């Protein structure tokens, strides 16, 4: 259990914040983006982000399974763990870049007013300035 806990805790990469925001946007888009062409563009961006998320989650699961195999083996050397972490980090950074790009693309097609309706600040939080 300790090793599973450590893996989960050490694998958080902040991507869940943008993932959750995009899922929320997918639900709001139909009512808040009334222009059909604009809505189509937004849905395409969100679909691409969802696909990237699915691929990355699959990769993260593979790394987790590999981590379990390594931890089970008495003879696993440090280098094997390091290589696994390096592979995970490269995947995380690429995924983060995809999420940031998707946010920027959405930003370019939505107005400020639409943005604030689609992504309202969580209660008790103020948008960063």
């Amino acid at each position, binding site marked *: 259990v300790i090793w599973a806990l450590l893996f989960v805790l050490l694998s958080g990469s*902040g991507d869940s914040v943008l993932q959750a925001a995009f899922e929320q946007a997918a639900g709001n888009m139909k009512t808040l983006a009334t222009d059909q062409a604009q809505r189509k563009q937004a849905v395409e961006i969100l679909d691409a982000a969802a696909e990237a998320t699915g691929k990355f989650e699959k990769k993260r699961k593979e790394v987790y399974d590999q981590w379990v195999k390594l931890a089970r083996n008495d003879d696993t050397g440090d280098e094997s763990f390091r290589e696994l972490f390096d592979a995970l980090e490269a995947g995380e950074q690429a995924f983060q870049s995809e999420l940031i790009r998707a946010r920027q693309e959405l930003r370019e097609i939505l107005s400020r007013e639409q943005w604030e309706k689609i992504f309202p600040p969580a209660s008790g939080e103020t948008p*960063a300035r």
Partner: protein
Amino acid sequence: MTMCHYALLALLWGLAAGCATTPPLRDAADSAFDELRTQLRAEITGSARRDQLLAYVDALENLMILAVEEQRAANAELRALHANYDTTTEAFTAVFQRLNEQKSSRRQRLVEIAAEARALTTSEEWKRINRFKQLALEAALELNTHVEALP
């Protein structure tokens, strides 16, 4: 389900929910680390080695607590940045980069701790400790499906 299953589920639930409930999270983590301490006290003879290994468990626990705190702070920062229409991609990249560096440093430390702990134990001791670890990993594998299903 064993108590360990419930403890891990509670911990993961706390993480997935944004860690709003610190006491249950800490209780679950404490329970898991206490289990490892009990294993070490039973398996390792020689007080100096045992104490050093227990110190490594403390270090692991501190690493986890730090990971939770840093992740929680970064998530709040990212939510606030995203809510702001004017946030630049550079601002996002900077937060992710900081988060990645913190995480990479913790992962390196985790590998170092494991290597140092292994060097302190005999091959037989390490195997016996690993047997406990394997049982835990079986449970963790089963739980992995629950992790994916969490909100």
